[in-house]
């Protein structure tokens, strides 16, 4: 009897609640995240290539759809790190903020950010993505996600880049040289060209952001030649984390670079190169080959064409190294270092959580990638396509692919945690003009995608607080020691055989323990 009455009562209640809900739905659109207009303060850096407008189609669309007004703060990229650090350190963060993965790992344990894993049920879209790829587990801190990584939604025109071998293919053709397939062949090919064209620099490099030219050279060439320039995961050695410069295979890397140096192939100024000199050598036709970001290097063809229209710097497939390995990384498909966090001091964390999750829906990706349907883009066969008149309006500028994104407020350099770079890609293709150019571009994209030597980068395992502290302490000491030695071996001041002593010393002062820490952490995550 009693149960029956309770049942009836519950039924009445359920009906009543549903009726009220339906009645409310009539007033407020179902997509709204809040009944009253909520302002979310959101901050990211502004890249000078793409200015962030504080009012644009995208922001209006979000307000209409979600009843959420984004108040965007966009400090310049050049100053962003300092600004970010001080805002975190003083607990004065905006509601949502773009930080780096390092920041997440550093401050998550201090409760600076909302633990998103605790709100998993409210974030079905985000967690569907995070759980689709087991390697994302490496992004957690003590098993929880404190941030939403920037994940790519692929579009048909997206392409992948990497630090690939770029070579003057016109010179290869001129001297009837086959495209090299191994690093040794590359050396001989460059030597052959240099024999006929003395004065040309064989292989050049730039300085790494805040590190040295040597470090940048090894960042690009170490792993393909046999061992990474820092901690790296070696699948060919059975799947293990190694500190590259203190591993056996690093001698093969040094031996090759030494051979290249003594043969006059490697730029004699490799250790002191700057970015400007690198640009100058490549875009004036003074250098034959470089291993670096192929998208950036490709730009030099514009300058090369003014020297001689026949000049061409082009990517060639991954080379086989002296150990018989054919391997290189391309850039990660996602931008995992761009982490979106919600401040734990925010007064509207519930709305922020809903908003961030919405960003990871397909509707969110469409709005954050293309703007407003019917205004800035249309669906063609279910795929968003930027309106032709917009392409024409912005397509004449020197910076068109970023200008159009700036105007709509979309793309990777705006607020787009689930990022579709379609607007930029479509503009780039529009600007290519001729069908041949588009076909050549598609062939390039295809060849990079099909290169079996290119692997996905492996995410570093998450460390505990104690592991992090210990690792950082060891890392700086080992790194400082090793990188003061390396140049001697590349330039031949010391025979490669002596490098065993460097390896032994590096291992004794911490390289061994660093590997241990990484492998333990890696296995701990895989074990779960």
């Amino acid at each position, binding site marked *: 009897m009693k149960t029956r009455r309770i049942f009836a009562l519950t039924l009445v209640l359920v009906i009543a609640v549903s009726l009220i809900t339906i009645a409310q739905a009539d007033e407020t659109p179902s997509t709204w995240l809040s009944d009253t207009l909520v302002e979310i303060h959101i901050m990211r850096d*502004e*890249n*000078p*290539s793409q*200015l962030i407008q*504080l009012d644009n189609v995208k922001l209006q669309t979000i307000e209409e759809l979600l009843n959420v007004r984004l108040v965007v*703060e*966009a*400090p*310049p*990229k*050049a*100053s962003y790190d*300092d*600004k970010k650090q*001080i805002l975190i*350190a*003083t607990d*004065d963060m905006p509601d949502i903020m773009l930080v780096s993965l390092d920041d997440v790992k550093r401050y998550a344990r201090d409760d600076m950010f909302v633990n998103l894993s605790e709100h998993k049920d409210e974030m079905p879209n985000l967690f569907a993505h995070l759980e689709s790829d087991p390697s994302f587990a490496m992004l957690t801190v003590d098993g929880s996600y404190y941030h939403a990584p920037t994940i790519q939604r692929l579009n048909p025109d997206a*392409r992948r*880049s990497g630090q690939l071998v770029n070579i003057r293919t016109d010179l290869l053709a001129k001297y009837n040289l086959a495209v090299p397939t191994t690093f040794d062949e590359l050396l001989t090919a460059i030597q052959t060209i240099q024999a006929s064209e003395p004065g040309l620099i064989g292989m050049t490099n730039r300085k*790494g*952001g805040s590190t040295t030219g040597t470090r940048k050279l090894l960042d690009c060439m170490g792993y393909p030649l046999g061992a990474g320039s820092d901690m790296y995961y070696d699948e060919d050695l059975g799947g293990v984390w190694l500190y590259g410069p203190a591993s056996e295979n690093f001698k093969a890397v040094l031996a090759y670079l030494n051979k290249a140096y003594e043969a006059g192939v490697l730029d004699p100024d490799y250790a002191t190169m700057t*970015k*400007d000199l690198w*640009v*100058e050598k490549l*875009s*004036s036709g003074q250098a034959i080959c470089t291993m670096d*970001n192929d*998208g*950036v290097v*490709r*730009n*030099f*063809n*514009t*300058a090369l064409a*003014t*020297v001689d229209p026949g000049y061409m710097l082009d990517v060639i497939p991954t080379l086989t190294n002296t150990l018989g390995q054919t391997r290189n990384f391309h*850039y*990660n498909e996602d*931008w995992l270092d761009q982490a979106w966090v919600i401040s734990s001091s925010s007064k509207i964390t519930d709305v922020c959580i809903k908003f961030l999750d919405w960003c990871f829906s397909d509707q969110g990706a469409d709005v954050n990638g293309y703007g407003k349907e019917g205004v800035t883009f249309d669906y063609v066969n279910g795929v968003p396509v930027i309106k032709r008149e917009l392409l024409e309006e912005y397509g004449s500028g*020197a*910076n068109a692919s970023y200008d159009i994104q700036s105007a709509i407020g979309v793309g*990777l*350099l705006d607020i787009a945690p689930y990022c579709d*770079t379609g607007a*930029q*890609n479509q503009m*780039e293709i529009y*600007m*290519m003009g001729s069908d041949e150019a588009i076909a050549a*571009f598609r062939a390039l994209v295809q060849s990079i995608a099909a290169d079996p030597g290119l692997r996905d980068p492996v995410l570093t395992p998450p460390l505990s607080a104690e592991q992090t502290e210990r690792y950082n302490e060891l890392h700086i000491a080992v790194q400082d020691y090793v990188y003061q030695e390396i140049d001697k071996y590349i330039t031949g001041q010391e025979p490669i055989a002596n490098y065993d002593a460097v390896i032994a010393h590096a291992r004794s002062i911490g390289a061994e323990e660093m590997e241990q820490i990484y492998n333990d952490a890696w296995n701990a995550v895989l074990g779960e």
Partner: protein
Amino acid sequence: MMQDHSTSRRVFNVFNITFLALLMLVTLYPMYFMFITSISHGVEVMKGTISVLPKLVTLDTYRAIVQGDLFLYMKNSVLYTVVGTVINLVMSCLAAYPLSRRNFSGRKPFTAIVTFTLFFSGGMIPLYLTVNAFGIMDSIWALVLPGAINTYNMIIIRTTFQAIPDSLTESAQLDGANDIVILWKIIIPLSKAVLATMLLFYAVAHWNSYFDAMLYINSKAKYPLQIMLRNMLIGGLFADETTVAATGAASFSVTDGTLRAAAIIVTTLPILIVYPFVQRHFVKGVMIGSLKG
């Protein structure tokens, strides 16, 4: 000036003039190079073909700078520089004068208080919190008050004040002038050359500063020029990005090289304009003796 006509004097003059001419050459050329770089086509700059004359002259680089509300930022910078420098000079003189009086009873403790700050500071975090607590965040006051006195400059001013003979101030004191009058009527006019230099130092520091603005200014409309210029330099086209998927379709009339050069020109220009006015005060020596009477 009386002329010396000895041979050694003449030899010295020839040497001096030649040496200074050489020094001018090596200091002028890089700035000239920046100028021709800023008006050359980016591709030529990339290729490194510019040395004496600009190539494929274009104003695209300056156009690129102007597109981002340059004039608004410039206006802000001028405002911050003028207000900041005035506050700096007034405050520095106010602090320097009492510290320069040998018989001032508070001289020792105040000197200690001031000098201590040369060596020790609380750091960025508490300063940020202090500025925040005063409610001056995102306003001009956050840029001009926390650095109202540069103690280094203030000490230079104090040293200059100290060098003024006591006899001058004593006679004024006997005439019944108080310290405010003495500072204003005697000390400051006699120290014009050094104060002009300090004006230059302070103004240049304000004009070039970006760090405080980066910390304390949140509204884009209040940014000074340097924040925008710096962004163009550091986050440029060929920055170490994993995101660039360029296609070679761009024309590159503007590149990192031309932007950097133009930014340096824009930064230097106002100083070039102001300097001659400051310089006027250096050329003629002050006749301290004539004031004594």
